[in-house]
Protein backbone atom coordinates (compact mmCIF):
# COMPACT_ATOMS: atom_id res chain seq x y z
CA UNK A 1 0.00 0.00 0.00
CA UNK A 2 2.85 2.42 0.80
CA UNK A 3 4.19 1.91 -2.70
CA UNK A 4 0.78 2.71 -4.21
CA UNK A 5 0.43 5.79 -2.02
CA UNK A 6 3.89 6.95 -3.04
CA UNK A 7 3.00 6.59 -6.72
CA UNK A 8 -0.09 8.76 -6.14
CA UNK A 9 1.90 11.24 -4.06
CA UNK A 10 -0.12 14.32 -5.10
CA UNK A 11 -3.41 12.73 -4.15
CA UNK A 12 -1.99 11.40 -0.87
CA UNK A 13 -0.80 14.89 0.02
CA UNK A 14 -4.17 16.33 -0.89
CA UNK A 15 -5.94 13.79 1.36
CA UNK A 16 -3.61 14.64 4.25
CA UNK A 17 -4.21 18.37 3.67
CA UNK A 18 -7.96 17.71 3.62
CA UNK A 19 -7.82 15.93 6.98
CA UNK A 20 -5.62 18.69 8.44
CA UNK A 21 -8.15 21.30 7.35
CA UNK A 22 -11.04 19.21 8.67
CA UNK A 23 -9.46 18.76 12.09
CA UNK A 24 -8.69 22.50 12.26
CA UNK A 25 -12.36 23.08 11.50
CA UNK A 26 -13.39 20.71 14.31
CA UNK A 27 -10.82 21.51 16.96
CA UNK A 28 -10.16 25.24 16.83
CA UNK A 29 -12.52 27.52 18.73
CA UNK A 30 -11.46 30.72 17.00
CA UNK A 31 -13.77 31.53 14.10
CA UNK A 32 -10.98 32.94 11.91
CA UNK A 33 -9.00 29.73 12.35
CA UNK A 34 -12.05 27.70 11.40
CA UNK A 35 -12.31 29.70 8.19
CA UNK A 36 -8.62 29.10 7.50
CA UNK A 37 -9.20 25.37 8.02
CA UNK A 38 -12.06 25.39 5.53
CA UNK A 39 -9.81 27.14 3.01
CA UNK A 40 -7.12 24.50 3.51
CA UNK A 41 -9.77 21.88 2.71
CA UNK A 42 -10.67 23.80 -0.47
CA UNK A 43 -7.05 23.94 -1.53
CA UNK A 44 -6.61 20.21 -1.02
CA UNK A 45 -9.61 19.57 -3.27
CA UNK A 46 -8.10 21.78 -6.01
CA UNK A 47 -4.83 19.90 -5.74
CA UNK A 48 -6.72 16.61 -6.03
CA UNK A 49 -8.66 17.74 -9.11
CA UNK A 50 -5.62 19.22 -10.83
CA UNK A 51 -3.60 16.06 -10.20
CA UNK A 52 -6.43 13.93 -11.58
CA UNK A 53 -6.36 15.90 -14.83
CA UNK A 54 -2.62 15.62 -15.40
CA UNK A 55 -1.28 13.10 -17.90
CA UNK A 56 2.41 12.25 -17.99
CA UNK A 57 4.41 13.94 -20.75
CA UNK A 58 1.60 16.05 -22.17
CA UNK A 59 1.25 19.83 -22.39
CA UNK A 60 -1.30 22.32 -21.12
CA UNK A 61 -4.30 22.53 -23.51
CA UNK A 62 -3.23 25.66 -25.40
CA UNK A 63 -2.82 25.11 -29.13
CA UNK A 64 0.40 26.84 -30.15
CA UNK A 65 1.67 24.72 -33.03
CA UNK A 66 -1.57 23.60 -34.66
CA UNK A 67 -1.54 20.11 -33.14
CA UNK A 68 -5.11 18.95 -32.40
CA UNK A 69 -4.41 15.42 -31.16
CA UNK A 70 -5.96 14.13 -27.94
CA UNK A 71 -2.61 12.54 -27.09
CA UNK A 72 -0.85 15.93 -27.09
CA UNK A 73 -2.74 17.65 -24.26
CA UNK A 74 -3.82 17.00 -20.70
CA UNK A 75 -7.46 16.78 -19.66
CA UNK A 76 -8.97 20.30 -19.69
CA UNK A 77 -12.14 19.47 -17.72
CA UNK A 78 -10.64 19.38 -14.15
CA UNK A 79 -8.95 22.73 -14.82
CA UNK A 80 -12.32 24.35 -15.45
CA UNK A 81 -13.75 22.71 -12.34
CA UNK A 82 -10.88 24.07 -10.23
CA UNK A 83 -11.64 27.55 -11.59
CA UNK A 84 -15.26 27.24 -10.51
CA UNK A 85 -14.20 25.98 -7.09
CA UNK A 86 -11.81 28.87 -6.52
CA UNK A 87 -14.47 31.46 -7.30
CA UNK A 88 -17.04 29.83 -5.04
CA UNK A 89 -14.54 29.47 -2.18
CA UNK A 90 -13.60 33.17 -2.47
CA UNK A 91 -17.27 34.10 -2.28
CA UNK A 92 -18.13 32.05 0.77
CA UNK A 93 -14.91 33.01 2.56
CA UNK A 94 -15.93 36.66 2.14
CA UNK A 95 -19.42 35.99 3.50
CA UNK A 96 -18.08 34.02 6.48
CA UNK A 97 -15.58 36.76 7.33
CA UNK A 98 -18.33 39.38 7.13
CA UNK A 99 -20.49 37.32 9.52
CA UNK A 100 -17.48 36.95 11.84
CA UNK A 101 -17.05 40.72 11.88
CA UNK A 102 -20.69 41.16 12.80
CA UNK A 103 -20.39 38.57 15.60
CA UNK A 104 -17.26 40.27 16.90
CA UNK A 105 -18.96 43.67 16.92
CA UNK A 106 -21.80 42.24 18.96
CA UNK A 107 -20.00 39.93 21.41
CA UNK A 108 -16.43 41.28 21.37
CA UNK A 109 -14.95 37.80 21.13
CA UNK A 110 -14.08 35.32 18.41
CA UNK A 111 -14.35 32.22 20.62
CA UNK A 112 -17.34 30.25 19.38
CA UNK A 113 -18.09 28.69 22.80
CA UNK A 114 -18.16 32.08 24.49
CA UNK A 115 -20.38 33.42 21.74
CA UNK A 116 -22.75 30.49 22.26
CA UNK A 117 -22.82 31.10 26.04
CA UNK A 118 -23.44 34.83 25.57
CA UNK A 119 -26.19 34.17 23.06
CA UNK A 120 -27.86 31.71 25.46
CA UNK A 121 -27.64 34.32 28.22
CA UNK A 122 -29.36 36.83 25.95
CA UNK A 123 -32.25 34.45 25.32
CA UNK A 124 -32.85 33.74 29.02
Amino acid at each position, binding site marked *: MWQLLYENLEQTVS*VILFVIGFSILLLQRNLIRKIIGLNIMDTSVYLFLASMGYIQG*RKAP*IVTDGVLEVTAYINPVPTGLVLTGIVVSVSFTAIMLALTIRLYRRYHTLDIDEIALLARGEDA
Partner: protein
Amino acid sequence: MSKRRSDWESRPQARVRRWFYKGFLALDDEIAEKISSPPPPRFDYEEALEAQQAAIDSRQHERSIAIERLDQHNLLVWMRTRGRKAISRLYVALALVLGLMMMVFLLETVALMPRFGDPATPGANEVSARYIEKGLDETGAVNIVAGMILDYRAFDTLGESTVLFIAASAVLILLRIDHDKEGNPAQELIAAESDDRHYEPRDDRILQGSAMVLTPIILLYGIYIILNGHLSPGGGFSGGAIVSAGLILYLVAFGFEKAGRFFTTKTFTWVSFFSLSFYALAKAYAFYMGANGLPSGIPLGTPGAILSSGLIMPLNIAVGMVVACTMYVFYALFRKGGL
Protein backbone atom coordinates in the same frame (compact mmCIF):
# COMPACT_ATOMS: atom_id res chain seq x y z
CA MET B 1 -46.48 51.36 85.91
CA SER B 2 -46.63 50.61 82.32
CA LYS B 3 -49.62 48.72 81.10
CA ARG B 4 -47.58 46.18 79.36
CA ARG B 5 -45.47 44.16 81.62
CA SER B 6 -42.41 42.38 80.74
CA ASP B 7 -41.73 38.88 81.97
CA TRP B 8 -39.37 40.35 84.43
CA GLU B 9 -42.17 42.28 86.13
CA SER B 10 -44.64 39.37 86.17
CA ARG B 11 -42.30 37.08 88.03
CA PRO B 12 -43.69 35.87 91.42
CA GLN B 13 -40.90 37.67 93.29
CA ALA B 14 -41.71 40.93 91.51
CA ARG B 15 -45.41 40.53 92.36
CA VAL B 16 -44.66 39.93 96.04
CA ARG B 17 -42.36 42.93 96.03
CA ARG B 18 -45.03 45.11 94.42
CA TRP B 19 -47.65 43.88 96.89
CA PHE B 20 -45.28 44.60 99.72
CA TYR B 21 -44.54 48.14 98.63
CA LYS B 22 -47.72 49.31 96.94
CA GLY B 23 -50.47 47.28 98.53
CA PHE B 24 -53.39 45.93 96.55
CA LEU B 25 -53.51 48.88 94.18
CA ALA B 26 -50.92 47.35 91.97
CA LEU B 27 -52.80 44.08 91.91
CA ASP B 28 -56.02 45.93 91.03
CA ASP B 29 -54.20 47.62 88.28
CA GLU B 30 -53.13 44.22 87.04
CA ILE B 31 -56.63 42.80 87.28
CA ALA B 32 -58.13 45.78 85.50
CA GLU B 33 -55.67 45.35 82.73
CA LYS B 34 -56.48 41.67 82.45
CA ILE B 35 -60.21 42.38 82.24
CA SER B 36 -59.90 45.21 79.76
CA SER B 37 -57.69 43.22 77.41
CA PRO B 38 -59.57 40.78 75.15
CA PRO B 39 -59.60 37.18 76.24
CA PRO B 40 -57.06 34.96 74.58
CA PRO B 41 -58.49 32.97 71.68
CA ARG B 42 -59.45 29.45 72.42
CA PHE B 43 -56.97 26.91 71.41
CA ASP B 44 -58.30 25.04 68.36
CA TYR B 45 -56.59 21.71 68.15
CA GLU B 46 -57.69 20.84 64.62
CA GLU B 47 -56.52 24.18 63.26
CA ALA B 48 -53.32 23.87 65.13
CA LEU B 49 -52.76 20.40 63.76
CA GLU B 50 -53.46 21.61 60.24
CA ALA B 51 -51.18 24.58 60.68
CA GLN B 52 -48.47 22.32 62.03
CA GLN B 53 -48.93 19.93 59.16
CA ALA B 54 -48.83 22.83 56.70
CA ALA B 55 -45.70 24.15 58.35
CA ILE B 56 -44.10 20.74 58.11
CA ASP B 57 -45.17 20.45 54.49
CA SER B 58 -43.88 23.87 53.57
CA ARG B 59 -40.63 23.15 55.36
CA GLN B 60 -40.27 19.89 53.47
CA HIS B 61 -41.15 21.70 50.26
CA GLU B 62 -38.55 24.37 50.94
CA ARG B 63 -36.05 21.71 51.77
CA SER B 64 -36.70 19.84 48.54
CA ILE B 65 -36.44 23.11 46.57
CA ALA B 66 -33.19 23.90 48.30
CA ILE B 67 -31.85 20.42 47.53
CA GLU B 68 -32.92 20.81 43.92
CA ARG B 69 -31.24 24.18 43.67
CA LEU B 70 -28.10 22.81 45.22
CA ASP B 71 -28.10 19.96 42.72
CA GLN B 72 -28.58 22.40 39.86
CA HIS B 73 -25.85 24.61 41.20
CA ASN B 74 -23.51 21.67 41.58
CA LEU B 75 -24.33 20.54 38.07
CA LEU B 76 -23.69 24.03 36.70
CA VAL B 77 -20.42 24.28 38.56
CA TRP B 78 -19.45 20.85 37.29
CA MET B 79 -20.41 21.84 33.76
CA ARG B 80 -18.38 25.01 33.98
CA THR B 81 -15.29 23.43 35.48
CA ARG B 82 -14.60 19.73 35.31
CA GLY B 83 -17.52 18.75 33.10
CA ARG B 84 -16.56 21.25 30.46
CA LYS B 85 -13.04 19.93 30.49
CA ALA B 86 -14.25 16.33 30.31
CA ILE B 87 -16.69 17.06 27.50
CA SER B 88 -14.14 19.04 25.53
CA ARG B 89 -11.61 16.24 26.00
CA LEU B 90 -14.16 13.72 24.78
CA TYR B 91 -14.92 16.01 21.85
CA VAL B 92 -11.26 16.36 20.94
CA ALA B 93 -10.76 12.60 21.17
CA LEU B 94 -13.81 11.94 18.98
CA ALA B 95 -12.71 14.56 16.47
CA LEU B 96 -9.23 13.05 16.26
CA VAL B 97 -10.67 9.56 15.84
CA LEU B 98 -13.01 10.84 13.14
CA GLY B 99 -10.18 12.63 11.34
CA LEU B 100 -7.91 9.59 11.50
CA MET B 101 -10.67 7.28 10.26
CA MET B 102 -11.39 9.68 7.42
CA MET B 103 -7.71 9.81 6.52
CA VAL B 104 -7.38 6.01 6.56
CA PHE B 105 -10.43 5.51 4.34
CA LEU B 106 -9.44 8.27 1.92
CA LEU B 107 -5.87 6.94 1.71
CA GLU B 108 -7.22 3.45 0.99
CA THR B 109 -9.25 4.99 -1.82
CA VAL B 110 -6.26 6.93 -3.13
CA ALA B 111 -4.23 3.73 -3.24
CA LEU B 112 -6.89 2.24 -5.53
CA MET B 113 -7.20 5.34 -7.74
CA PRO B 114 -5.63 5.35 -11.23
CA ARG B 115 -1.91 6.14 -11.24
CA PHE B 116 -0.83 9.77 -11.35
CA GLY B 117 -0.23 10.83 -14.96
CA ASP B 118 -1.83 7.69 -16.38
CA PRO B 119 -3.22 8.33 -19.92
CA ALA B 120 -5.97 5.73 -19.36
CA THR B 121 -7.64 7.62 -16.50
CA PRO B 122 -11.43 7.30 -16.69
CA GLY B 123 -11.59 11.09 -16.42
CA ALA B 124 -9.90 11.51 -19.79
CA ASN B 125 -12.90 10.24 -21.72
CA GLU B 126 -14.65 11.29 -24.93
CA VAL B 127 -15.77 14.63 -23.42
CA SER B 128 -12.28 16.00 -23.01
CA ALA B 129 -11.26 14.40 -26.31
CA ARG B 130 -14.08 16.25 -28.04
CA TYR B 131 -13.09 19.54 -26.39
CA ILE B 132 -9.49 19.13 -27.54
CA GLU B 133 -10.21 17.93 -31.07
CA LYS B 134 -13.05 20.28 -32.00
CA GLY B 135 -12.54 23.14 -29.53
CA LEU B 136 -10.35 25.25 -31.77
CA ASP B 137 -12.66 24.90 -34.78
CA GLU B 138 -15.89 25.46 -32.90
CA THR B 139 -14.92 28.25 -30.50
CA GLY B 140 -11.90 29.76 -32.22
CA ALA B 141 -10.04 29.96 -28.91
CA VAL B 142 -6.43 28.84 -28.84
CA ASN B 143 -6.74 28.34 -25.09
CA ILE B 144 -8.96 25.26 -24.96
CA VAL B 145 -9.83 25.79 -21.30
CA ALA B 146 -11.09 29.32 -22.05
CA GLY B 147 -13.12 27.97 -24.95
CA MET B 148 -14.51 25.30 -22.67
CA ILE B 149 -15.56 27.51 -19.75
CA LEU B 150 -16.85 30.44 -21.85
CA ASP B 151 -18.44 28.55 -24.73
CA TYR B 152 -19.35 24.94 -23.96
CA ARG B 153 -19.87 25.57 -20.25
CA ALA B 154 -20.86 29.23 -20.41
CA PHE B 155 -23.91 28.75 -18.20
CA ASP B 156 -21.59 27.50 -15.47
CA THR B 157 -19.45 30.62 -15.74
CA LEU B 158 -22.50 32.90 -15.68
CA GLY B 159 -23.51 31.15 -12.46
CA GLU B 160 -20.03 31.70 -11.04
CA SER B 161 -20.12 35.41 -11.80
CA THR B 162 -23.57 35.60 -10.23
CA VAL B 163 -22.33 33.80 -7.11
CA LEU B 164 -19.55 36.35 -6.82
CA PHE B 165 -21.99 39.22 -7.30
CA ILE B 166 -24.39 37.79 -4.71
CA ALA B 167 -21.53 37.31 -2.25
CA ALA B 168 -20.52 40.95 -2.70
CA SER B 169 -24.13 42.04 -2.17
CA ALA B 170 -24.38 39.92 0.99
CA VAL B 171 -21.16 41.40 2.37
CA LEU B 172 -22.50 44.85 1.49
CA ILE B 173 -25.69 44.14 3.44
CA LEU B 174 -23.77 42.76 6.42
CA LEU B 175 -21.03 45.37 6.72
CA ARG B 176 -22.27 48.58 5.12
CA ILE B 177 -22.59 51.46 7.55
CA ASP B 178 -25.11 53.96 6.25
CA HIS B 179 -25.50 57.63 6.88
CA ASP B 180 -28.50 58.54 9.01
CA LYS B 181 -31.66 60.19 7.70
CA GLU B 182 -30.30 63.71 7.77
CA GLY B 183 -27.23 62.69 5.81
CA ASN B 184 -24.80 62.93 8.69
CA PRO B 185 -22.29 60.13 9.12
CA ALA B 186 -23.40 57.58 11.68
CA GLN B 187 -21.53 57.10 14.95
CA GLU B 188 -20.23 53.72 13.81
CA LEU B 189 -18.85 55.22 10.62
CA ILE B 190 -16.95 57.89 12.55
CA ALA B 191 -15.57 55.18 14.86
CA ALA B 192 -14.57 53.03 11.87
CA GLU B 193 -12.85 55.98 10.21
CA SER B 194 -10.93 56.86 13.36
CA ASP B 195 -9.90 53.20 13.65
CA ASP B 196 -8.81 53.33 10.04
CA ARG B 197 -6.68 56.40 10.67
CA HIS B 198 -5.31 54.88 13.84
CA TYR B 199 -4.11 51.64 12.34
CA GLU B 200 -3.24 52.65 8.78
CA PRO B 201 -0.47 55.05 7.89
CA ARG B 202 -1.70 58.29 6.35
CA ASP B 203 0.22 59.79 3.44
CA ASP B 204 3.09 57.34 3.72
CA ARG B 205 5.78 58.58 1.32
CA ILE B 206 7.33 55.20 0.58
CA LEU B 207 3.96 53.54 0.03
CA GLN B 208 2.71 56.35 -2.19
CA GLY B 209 5.91 56.41 -4.26
CA SER B 210 5.87 52.66 -4.85
CA ALA B 211 2.13 52.70 -5.52
CA MET B 212 2.58 55.44 -8.13
CA VAL B 213 5.10 53.23 -9.93
CA LEU B 214 3.38 49.88 -9.40
CA THR B 215 -0.34 50.58 -9.84
CA PRO B 216 -0.23 51.34 -13.61
CA ILE B 217 1.95 48.29 -14.22
CA ILE B 218 -0.35 46.02 -12.22
CA LEU B 219 -3.45 47.40 -13.94
CA LEU B 220 -1.86 46.98 -17.37
CA TYR B 221 -0.82 43.42 -16.56
CA GLY B 222 -4.33 42.59 -15.37
CA ILE B 223 -5.87 44.06 -18.52
CA TYR B 224 -3.36 42.10 -20.62
CA ILE B 225 -4.38 38.89 -18.89
CA ILE B 226 -8.07 39.62 -19.37
CA LEU B 227 -7.65 40.47 -23.07
CA ASN B 228 -5.42 37.47 -23.74
CA GLY B 229 -7.75 35.06 -21.98
CA HIS B 230 -8.45 33.14 -25.18
CA LEU B 231 -4.77 33.05 -26.24
CA SER B 232 -2.77 32.27 -23.12
CA PRO B 233 -3.31 31.06 -19.57
CA GLY B 234 -5.54 33.47 -17.72
CA GLY B 235 -8.88 35.04 -18.38
CA GLY B 236 -11.52 37.09 -16.68
CA PHE B 237 -11.21 35.67 -13.18
CA SER B 238 -7.44 35.84 -12.76
CA GLY B 239 -7.09 39.13 -14.66
CA GLY B 240 -9.90 40.68 -12.65
CA ALA B 241 -8.21 39.63 -9.42
CA ILE B 242 -4.97 41.30 -10.59
CA VAL B 243 -6.77 44.53 -11.57
CA SER B 244 -8.47 44.62 -8.18
CA ALA B 245 -5.08 44.10 -6.50
CA GLY B 246 -3.84 47.23 -8.30
CA LEU B 247 -6.93 49.19 -7.20
CA ILE B 248 -6.50 48.03 -3.61
CA LEU B 249 -2.85 49.10 -3.66
CA TYR B 250 -3.97 52.56 -4.81
CA LEU B 251 -6.57 52.67 -2.05
CA VAL B 252 -4.08 51.65 0.63
CA ALA B 253 -1.58 54.27 -0.49
CA PHE B 254 -3.85 57.24 -1.15
CA GLY B 255 -6.85 56.66 1.11
CA PHE B 256 -10.56 56.57 0.58
CA GLU B 257 -10.95 60.22 -0.40
CA LYS B 258 -8.91 59.92 -3.58
CA ALA B 259 -10.16 56.41 -4.43
CA GLY B 260 -13.75 57.58 -3.92
CA ARG B 261 -13.37 59.94 -6.87
CA PHE B 262 -13.48 57.10 -9.36
CA PHE B 263 -15.07 54.24 -7.41
CA THR B 264 -18.24 54.48 -5.36
CA THR B 265 -21.01 52.06 -4.50
CA LYS B 266 -22.84 53.34 -7.56
CA THR B 267 -19.87 52.39 -9.75
CA PHE B 268 -19.90 48.91 -8.30
CA THR B 269 -23.64 48.49 -8.82
CA TRP B 270 -23.68 49.73 -12.41
CA VAL B 271 -20.50 48.00 -13.58
CA SER B 272 -21.63 44.67 -12.11
CA PHE B 273 -25.15 45.09 -13.44
CA PHE B 274 -24.06 45.96 -16.98
CA SER B 275 -21.37 43.28 -17.11
CA LEU B 276 -23.70 40.55 -15.90
CA SER B 277 -26.56 41.59 -18.16
CA PHE B 278 -24.21 41.88 -21.14
CA TYR B 279 -22.96 38.39 -20.35
CA ALA B 280 -26.48 37.00 -20.05
CA LEU B 281 -27.69 38.70 -23.24
CA ALA B 282 -24.64 37.63 -25.27
CA LYS B 283 -24.98 34.02 -24.17
CA ALA B 284 -28.73 34.12 -24.70
CA TYR B 285 -28.09 35.25 -28.28
CA ALA B 286 -25.51 32.51 -28.80
CA PHE B 287 -27.84 29.84 -27.42
CA TYR B 288 -30.75 31.20 -29.44
CA MET B 289 -28.70 30.93 -32.61
CA GLY B 290 -28.04 27.28 -31.87
CA ALA B 291 -24.79 27.19 -29.88
CA ASN B 292 -22.74 23.99 -30.38
CA GLY B 293 -20.68 25.58 -33.14
CA LEU B 294 -23.61 26.44 -35.41
CA PRO B 295 -23.13 29.75 -37.28
CA SER B 296 -24.40 32.63 -35.16
CA GLY B 297 -23.26 35.59 -37.25
CA ILE B 298 -20.32 36.30 -34.99
CA PRO B 299 -17.02 35.85 -36.86
CA LEU B 300 -14.57 33.52 -35.16
CA GLY B 301 -11.52 35.13 -36.73
CA THR B 302 -8.16 33.53 -37.28
CA PRO B 303 -7.05 31.47 -34.28
CA GLY B 304 -4.21 33.13 -32.42
CA ALA B 305 -5.14 36.71 -33.32
CA ILE B 306 -6.22 39.04 -30.54
CA LEU B 307 -9.63 39.69 -32.18
CA SER B 308 -10.71 36.11 -32.58
CA SER B 309 -12.84 33.40 -31.01
CA GLY B 310 -16.16 35.22 -31.25
CA LEU B 311 -17.78 36.05 -27.94
CA ILE B 312 -15.04 34.75 -25.67
CA MET B 313 -13.07 37.99 -25.41
CA PRO B 314 -16.07 40.25 -24.60
CA LEU B 315 -17.29 37.68 -22.07
CA ASN B 316 -13.85 37.61 -20.50
CA ILE B 317 -13.92 41.40 -20.21
CA ALA B 318 -17.36 41.29 -18.55
CA VAL B 319 -16.26 38.61 -16.08
CA GLY B 320 -13.04 40.52 -15.37
CA MET B 321 -14.94 43.71 -14.57
CA VAL B 322 -17.30 41.88 -12.21
CA VAL B 323 -14.39 40.18 -10.42
CA ALA B 324 -12.33 43.37 -10.12
CA CYS B 325 -15.24 45.38 -8.71
CA THR B 326 -16.21 42.60 -6.30
CA MET B 327 -12.72 42.14 -4.88
CA TYR B 328 -12.28 45.90 -4.43
CA VAL B 329 -15.66 46.16 -2.69
CA PHE B 330 -14.74 43.26 -0.39
CA TYR B 331 -11.57 45.07 0.66
CA ALA B 332 -13.25 48.43 1.18
CA LEU B 333 -16.10 46.92 3.20
CA PHE B 334 -13.84 44.81 5.38
CA ARG B 335 -11.63 47.78 6.10
CA LYS B 336 -14.09 50.58 6.74
CA GLY B 337 -17.64 49.41 6.14
CA GLY B 338 -18.20 51.63 3.13
CA LEU B 339 -16.78 52.94 -0.08
